[in-house]
């Protein structure tokens, strides 16, 4: 489930509010809020669209998980999905490397 929006990184662009398929976030005058955490479907798509790597989705789908944001920021978790699919400038060469065709039919 979505656990945090990092207030230091977030620029209040509201992209996450728009793209979340289950409408988990609400706009505010500043940083969006996680208004309906229980509706989160753990799809990780808000992370892909956040240009600032300011969001973190915990992989636990059925229950909330306490997060230590300071410790989390010392790992490379935030933004890791975006980098892996090639949606950052530095990793855009990864967009065309899908090797699924070698794995189908196993």
């Amino acid at each position, binding site marked *: 489930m979505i656990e945090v929006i990092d207030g230091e990184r977030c620029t209040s662009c509201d992209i996450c*509010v*728009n*793209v*979340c*398929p*289950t*409408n988990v976030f609400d706009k505010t005058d500043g940083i969006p809020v996680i208004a309906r955490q229980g*509706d989160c*479907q*753990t*799809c*990780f*798509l808000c992370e*892909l*669209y956040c240009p600032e790597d300011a969001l973190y*989705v*915990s*992989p*636990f*789908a*059925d229950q909330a998980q306490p997060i230590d944001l300071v410790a989390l920021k010392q790992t490379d*978790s935030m933004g*890791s*999905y975006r980098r*892996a*699919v090639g*949606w950052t400038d530095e990793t855009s060469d*990864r*967009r*065309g*490397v*899908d*090797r*699924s*065709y*070698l*794995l*189908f039919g*196993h």
Partner: protein
Amino acid sequence: MPNPSHRAERVSAPEGSVVFEADVLVIGGGPAGTWAAVSAAERGARVVLADKGFCGTSGATAAAGTGVWYIDPDPALREAAMANREKMGGYLQDRRWMTRVLDSTYQHSNRLADWGYPYPVDGRGKSQRNSLQGPEYMRLMRKRTKQAGVTILDHSPALELLVDDDGAVAGASGMRRQKQDRWTVRAKAVVIATGGCAFLSKTLGSNVLTGDGYLMAAEVGAEFTSMEFSNPYAISPAFGSVTKTLFYGWASFSYDDGSVVPGAASKGGRSAIARALLEGPVYARLDKADDDVRHHMRVSQPNFFLPFDRTGIDPFKDRFPVTLRLEGTVRGTGGLRIVDDSCASSVPGLYAAGDAATRELICGGFTGGGSHNAAWAMSSGAWAGQGAADYATQVGPAAGRTLSSAGAVAFRSRSRRAFAPAALARAVQAEVFPYELNYFREASRLQGALGRLDAAWRDVSEADAADTSEIVRARETAAMLATARWMYRSALARQESRGMHRRDDFSEQDSRQRHYVTTGGLDEIWTSARPHAEAGYAEAAE
């Protein structure tokens, strides 16, 4: 550039709602809906597309990505592709439809390449087109939908259809849930592309898929088919949502004590996992993958690894607990019955595409996941969009038609009893999640579940209308309830095991039941058998 005169027109809005006038309304913006919208617009129709979430991220494909039934047009390869799953599907497929879908998928995938989809190139320089990364594909489809001049309404779940005096479908209305008001689209034809129903099981990307399109269509009298084939369960880490099963082909499955679960496998041995889960926890480890395979897995499907990387599990070395999440009609094959090549439903003005429609024509009774569903979504989407656009031209001017709302459950004020969506969702899940009810089926257990589900339907039919803050959830859970009842009524009617439908009390496939089960109705659910084209010919020849 889109021709501005082809844009849907926004007309005067009554208080608290926004009204559009269009030729074609597409409900749902996954692959089926976006292909439908683009195809209808290319036929010159003014199109509105309304999605519950955000067109581009919402639905099963956007979150999961899909293997695609893309086969080069070599007759031998095509023949092998068609023959491949016929037995698993219980011989309920239709060769003519398989041929059409293979042709259409080939064309549409090649269009995606022209539009800039970054297909990978293999070691021999050949572009490989049998896999689509979900976020990449759906971001591109949103862009193309906009470029085609389609008006997209995001965060706008449809709630009910509109019909004209003759009972033809002529639009829909719903909520703009980030603006707390209503939308109405008056259209000459409607495409239902709302995906399947996964019963809020948190299977990847599917909590927006609650069968809403089925409920809306049933309220105008549409028919369903193959609803008994709606019990696929997908493997995921027990704590997580990533139900991507391909890589479990390299897994070993074990009990708590480390001993191997006999017969357990992702393919052809998933029921052994379900039986073991009835006894206690089951663990997986992807220990059959060599270094090359591990590398391909990582670059191909990065989201598969998020649950592991973020919990410190090495899935190739460590054992981790797994579960099976119900995917309902998302990777099942049941849905709205298609009556002709344009993907028309049994109701005038109403078309169906993707998981909202049956996939029996190309999958029979076995899952369309892995390749067929994605092929069906793009093919049926394009046909339904074109069909709806052509129908709209024949209908003529819309002016002067009086339209009425078809929604019933959760809209009618019946009593002082409140509609309680959260409780209803749990009640439906309690009947459809358990493996002993839905994976392994048997008459008395099915009848017990149906009795409770029918009682729940009577209860919600008599409940008071839901208020604005609850109406979307109320309609979603009512749709789940209706879907469960079509599913189990059809499962009772099929007194054999075929495809993914297994009956403990009829464990064999019965050659006399090589037919389809049609179903429909809301207060009273009916079923009937429909002959399979080839089985019919065979009987006639005997």
